[in-house]
């Protein structure tokens, strides 16, 4: 029995299903899933928001469809079916982003198509949507998506501020935080910067969690 099944048998409330992905099982900071887009597209806040929205759409739609169909999907072909469903929604998102802005499409590059193999999405289909009702699956997908987008924003804001000295660059709301003599830390925009900032956030969240649990044991 997985953790989700145990929870389901105890019947978690809608709210706790939703909040699960935000904090307790945050896909990035707790489960450390989907690292490819997390490291790759977080060099600007606008990219992180676009990636977060695209992933949200794919995760919510595929979770809903998987939950709707889960009684008809034979166990042997479930992964193949999930991948077809996920790939469909990724293709739709790909077209929609191209239709909205070629600039954003160019910035996200291959990472749109790579949402297909984002383990968060297949993971939620396999671990949650394949066993739960449509309503619960959609709530879970929204929670996970917001948790994922939040994590992307955490990384992107630090990287963009240090690496470019701006927030929301490439949008009409661009804010220049430092004077013209600010020398950007180019490394923050490069892949190593992604690893550094991710490590910093993982450390911070692990520390907060640990402090919380140690407090919990003291009071009980």
């Amino acid at each position, binding site marked *: 029995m997985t953790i989700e099944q145990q929870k389901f048998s105890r019947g978690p409330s809608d709210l706790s299903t939703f909040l699960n992905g935000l904090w307790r099982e945050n896909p990035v900071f707790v489960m450390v899933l989907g690292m490819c887009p997390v490291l790759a597209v977080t060099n600007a806040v606008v990219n992180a928001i676009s990636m977060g929205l695209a992933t949200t759409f794919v995760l919510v739609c595929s979770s809903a469809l998987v939950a709707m169909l889960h009684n008809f999907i034979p166990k042997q072909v479930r992964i193949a079916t999930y991948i077809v469903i996920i790939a469909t929604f990724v293709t739709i998102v790909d077209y929609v982003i191209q239709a909205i802005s070629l600039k954003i499409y160019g910035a996200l590059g291959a990472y749109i198509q790579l949402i297909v193999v984002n383990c968060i999405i297949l993971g939620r289909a396999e671990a949650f949507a394949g*066993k739960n009702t449509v309503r619960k699956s959609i709530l879970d997908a929204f929670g996970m998506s917001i948790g994922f987008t939040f994590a992307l924003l955490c990384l992107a804001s630090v990287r963009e501020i240090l690496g470019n000295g701006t927030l929301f660059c490439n949008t009409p709301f661009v804010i220049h935080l430092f004077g013209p003599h600010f020398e950007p830390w*180019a490394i923050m925009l490069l892949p190593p910067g992604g690893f550094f900032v991710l490590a910093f956030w993982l450390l911070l969240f692990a520390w907060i969690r640990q402090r919380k649990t140690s407090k919990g044991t003291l009071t009980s």
Partner: protein
Amino acid sequence: MSNTMPKNDWFAMVRTLGMVSLLSGVLIVMAYEGTAARIAWNKQQATEAAVFAVIPGAVQKATFAVGQDGFTRLENHDEKGPKVYAGFDASGTLLGVALEASAQGYQDTIRALYGYDPVKQCIIGMKVLENRETPGLGSKIVTSEEFLKNFGALNVSVNADGSALEHPIELSKRGMKPESWQIDGISGATVSSKAVARALNESAQRMAPLVKKHLDQFTVK
């Protein structure tokens, strides 16, 4: 497991995968049909904006196909094959021709559009259309004003027998004042700067003599 299917039921597997694939096909075709016009319009806008950006002062443009014996005017933008764009001022005088260039960059192909003035025999503007260069370093070929200044009046004179350029477009030596046909590269983005120079050189060697030879074929109407 909430799965009620009997095991090894191949019919159920084929049916499920078949139905899901059919549904997937319908959804993708709907999304494609719904966005195709808008995507084509976006791409058209991007190229048009680039044409006016690389030919300063141009207010109208015409598209031409490149053939064996020069250029033929295109009315339909969906035509395949290599294309050039001519930019004119309000009175219909040819100001320059926008040509495409591409070369292997640091990570992927860099595609650029540049404006060629056949009268002054100069490159008068350059815009990178597509690149996957390292953000913050190689991507400066798109944003660095210092670098883009190189393409304000870059000498691409055609040689005496009209077969190639008099001087190949190249990066200037480090610390030396660039000649009129040389590009001052970006420090920290040498590979990307070189790639732009190579792309322009490869394209201009071929196209500049051709444009110069068939100059009268570029008409506004």
